[in-house]
């Protein structure tokens, strides 16, 4: 419950405060958000499976974000930033879908 509250508060604060994102971080924000979403879905599914562990979640969340940003950074340096970020988004999207399917099976039993 508190976790859900945290998400809601984060969205509200982001919309109200309008924080200025540093230019250096700006290109990596969208991909990091997608990676974090993937981690959150994974964590949610683990919770439904009953195997949730907060340490694992924290590590996976942070490493997901860092790795995604790193891949994009590397892609930019190699000149294939657009393609590589597309690839990352596709992979993360597939993972989100499979996790969402598992969550659906748990919640709706279907």
């Amino acid at each position, binding site marked *: *419950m508190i976790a859900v509250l945290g998400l809601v508060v984060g969205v509200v604060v982001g*919309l109200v405060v309008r924080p200025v994102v540093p230019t250096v971080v700006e290109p990596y924000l969208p991909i990091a958000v997608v990676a974090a979403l993937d*981690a959150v879905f*994974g964590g949610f599914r683990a919770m439904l499976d*009953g195997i949730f562990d907060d340490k694992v979640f924290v590590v996976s969340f942070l490493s997901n974000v860092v790795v995604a940003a790193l891949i994009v950074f590397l892609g930019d340096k190699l000149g294939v930033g657009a393609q590589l970020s597309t690839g990352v988004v596709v992979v993360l999207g597939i993972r989100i879908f499979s996790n969402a399917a598992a969550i659906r099976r748990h919640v709706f039993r279907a």
Partner: protein
Amino acid sequence: MSSGREPMTTDQTPAEPGKPTDETLSGPAEGAVDGPEDAGESAEAAQPFTGRQRLVNGLWPPRLTRAQLIVALLLFGLGLGLAIQVRSTNESSVLRGARQEDLVRILDELDNRTERLHEEKQRLEKQQTELENSSDQAEEARKQTAQKERQLAVLAGTVAAQGPGITMKIDASGSAVESDMLLDAVQELRAAGAEAIQIGKVRVIASTYFSDVGGAVEIDGRKVTQPYVIKVIGKPEDLEPALNIPGGVVQSLEKEQATVSIERSEKIVVDALRSAKRPDYARSSSR
């Protein structure tokens, strides 16, 4: 996994293991998808709760545990990033989130567009100059046409004219001055460069004709009474000698006992007018 294999390998209990195999197969299959991030193998997996029960337990009642707080913190960060990204994508232009190569491409396109527009501007400016020139030329042509029209109007006698010239008075009372004498005078004046001629109240133009009707002279069908006053616009220094040359108009007239007086003037007004006749058949061959 080992518990799942047993029923498969042993095949001795066909009815019962059917269901367990499905469940056990689907169980590990989902577990394999878990990925590294949520593979927290805790002992709770063995508990008999279903996923739905765990969800309800997790949501209500709210517990202030360390795990909840940490997850809330991370989700706060996620929500923040989400909101920022959505807002920046929505509110600002496409350029804000664009990548470097996209920006370069957009810049190139803008440069190309600027170049094209510049070329078009130059083309249009050239066209404008041409049009201005041509309109200047048209204006000039119009002016010339108007001037020519005025000159022709003076010749055709449709407008009054004034300028330097002479006034010639022929007093031929009791003498036989006939139309041919006047015609000679007019032709002599024209040869000397007369530009507008008026005899009495009649303007002399190209189609003017002279006739004798019962001892009087008619010009263009209008009777002209004596003394004949001929107003001529032209260069006086040319007109007067032309009339006075030996054997010329003046001498011929004086031979007929007519008195001729010629008077130079700096301002002669030829104000007898005639309406312009539109020719029925002749058309201008120039455009």
